């Protein structure tokens, strides 16, 4: 069925194009400035395209602040955090979705109500607990909690998905003599791969973008994450916008790549999270 082109549709389409441009403008401007010569950046009215193009800004940014080191630090936290989140949220979600045990409703309800809690109300005792256990500058506070179910939201998301898998599969496996961990590992987990990917992607973004966590647990420069490094960079080079924009661009590349690769999962995940009642 082909729709005919009407005035209304043309107006709508041009509006969407205009708004898309507005949404992209900050990113376009960032990339434009990242490649620009320091002298050209201050010209009024502004020049849209950098001339000459200066890719040196990127190497200069990395030389002034050790972003390569911060990248590895961030990666270390991301890898261990995301692994723990995906693994334990799958296990816990399997239990809450498919096994009956006394207190299941109560525990799940408590877990869900915890999501409404403002993070500041648990922040300080948690910080004090970690401080007394591992001291400052350890990454453990940023990793270990992920191994305890990976957060209520992720468990919720995986559970929602696992509940849609037919229960006849479990029953068939039980009759064949499979144990519950076996059913989880060989039946449910392979079938809920897509929700595990959604959780992994969300968690990657959350940890990569996290600012408050590293801010309170890490204060030694050599242990900084990218987010802290960029913030430190702002403080040092307020007027060197071309370097700041180059640094911002570098930090943005991994999440954008991951997003574009897993876009379908992202959208599925957000939609799933909005459909709770």
């Amino acid at each position, binding site marked *: 069925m082909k729709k005919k082109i009407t005035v209304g549709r043309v107006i709508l389409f041009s509006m969407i194009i205009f708004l898309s441009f507005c949404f992209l403008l*900050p990113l376009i401007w960032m990339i434009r400035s990242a490649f620009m010569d320091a002298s050209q950046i201050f010209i009024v009215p502004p020049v849209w395209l950098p001339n000459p193009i200066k890719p040196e800004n990127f190497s200069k940014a990395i030389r002034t602040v050790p972003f390569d080191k911060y990248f590895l630090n961030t990666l270390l936290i991301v890898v261990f955090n995301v692994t723990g989140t995906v693994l334990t949220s799958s296990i816990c979600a399997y*239990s809450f979705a498919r096994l009956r045990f006394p207190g299941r409703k109560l525990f799940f309800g408590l877990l869900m109500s915890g999501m409404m809690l403002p993070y500041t109300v648990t922040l300080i005792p948690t910080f004090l*607990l970690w401080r007394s256990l591992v001291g400052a500058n350890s990454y453990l506070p940023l990793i270990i909690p992920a191994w305890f179910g990976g957060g209520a939201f992720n468990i919720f998301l995986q559970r929602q998905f696992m509940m849609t898998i037919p229960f006849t599969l479990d029953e068939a496996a039980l009759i064949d003599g499979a144990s519950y961990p076996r059913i989880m590992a060989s039946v449910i987990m392979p079938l809920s791969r897509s929700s595990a990917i959604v959780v992994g992607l969300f968690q990657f973004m959350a940890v990569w*973008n996290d600012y408050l966590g590293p801010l309170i647990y890490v204060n030694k420069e050599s242990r900084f994450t990218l987010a802290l490094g960029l913030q430190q960079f702002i403080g040092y080079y307020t007027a060197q916008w071309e370097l700041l924009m180059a640094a911002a661009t570098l930090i943005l590349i991994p999440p954008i790549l991951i997003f574009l690769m897993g876009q379908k999962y992202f959208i599925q995940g957000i939609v799933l999270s909005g459909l709770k009642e």
Partner: protein
Amino acid sequence: MKNHTAPAKIHIRRRWNAEARYGLLLALPAILGFLIFTLGPLFASLILSFTDYTVSKAPSFVGVKNYVRLFSNQDPFFYKSLGVTLYYVVLSVPVSMVAAFLLALMLKHNMKGKALFRTIFYLPSIVPAVATATIFMWLLNPDIGLFNQILKAVGLPTSQWIYSEKTVVPTLAFMNAWTVGGTMLIFLAGLEGIPNQYYEAVDIDGGNAWNKLWTVTIPMMTPTIFFNLVMGIINGFQTFTQAQIMTEGGPNNASLFYTVLIYREAFKSFRMGNACSLAWVLFVIIMLLSSLVFRSSSSWVYYEGRR
């Protein structure tokens, strides 16, 4: 036919059978995590809020002194930050909700490039908050930033944006609209779930697009609006990163968000007891507001098949 011979015995055996044992075992990480990282700290912060605790010396019980200090205006920043945060929530939540809703309405239509536009509108939401802050500090630069240059070019008055007491909170609220992609996607999913026959019914009655919006779309969308509203309020009250990086609460504490104040008290001044009492006040405020929204929901949220 069910077997009724020994129900009691079966019941006892079933209570902790293999399923239940594995169920509890596999849920244990989440249950322990909740106790260690949520419930425990929740009560600990309540207890700490009744103490004087500065890390260097052990906490000493001071009763409700911390709370009295806050409400009797001895803390010069408490009411200030509460006002700033409320102002921000009142501005940013409606702006972002309306923006997200309008974008979703536009994208609802089947058109060429729909997936591409959806990606573009969502893209800003995955930009790390520190990077967003950096980019906007550049765009909002009063002298050479792009925004003022554009305003100048079209002959409009320029603004000091985040560098003036008057405009800093509205600017941050407006900035927040850049990251409405997630909310938009939730709205979009809701819109796509509205059955077409409702719109056809309006057509038959001779209604136009405006009637469709007010008699079908909005009533059908109230559960989604409700969900986004609650999440928007909760998140709005906890805004931290942008203000901390871009203004550090300034100029002259004009963007001293509540969470920035808590951060300052706890991690700059090391007054942990005080910070905990601030956090509990925020907790209570959020609970009260959420329950208010929940209560009002019965009069404006329409759930299909429910009366």
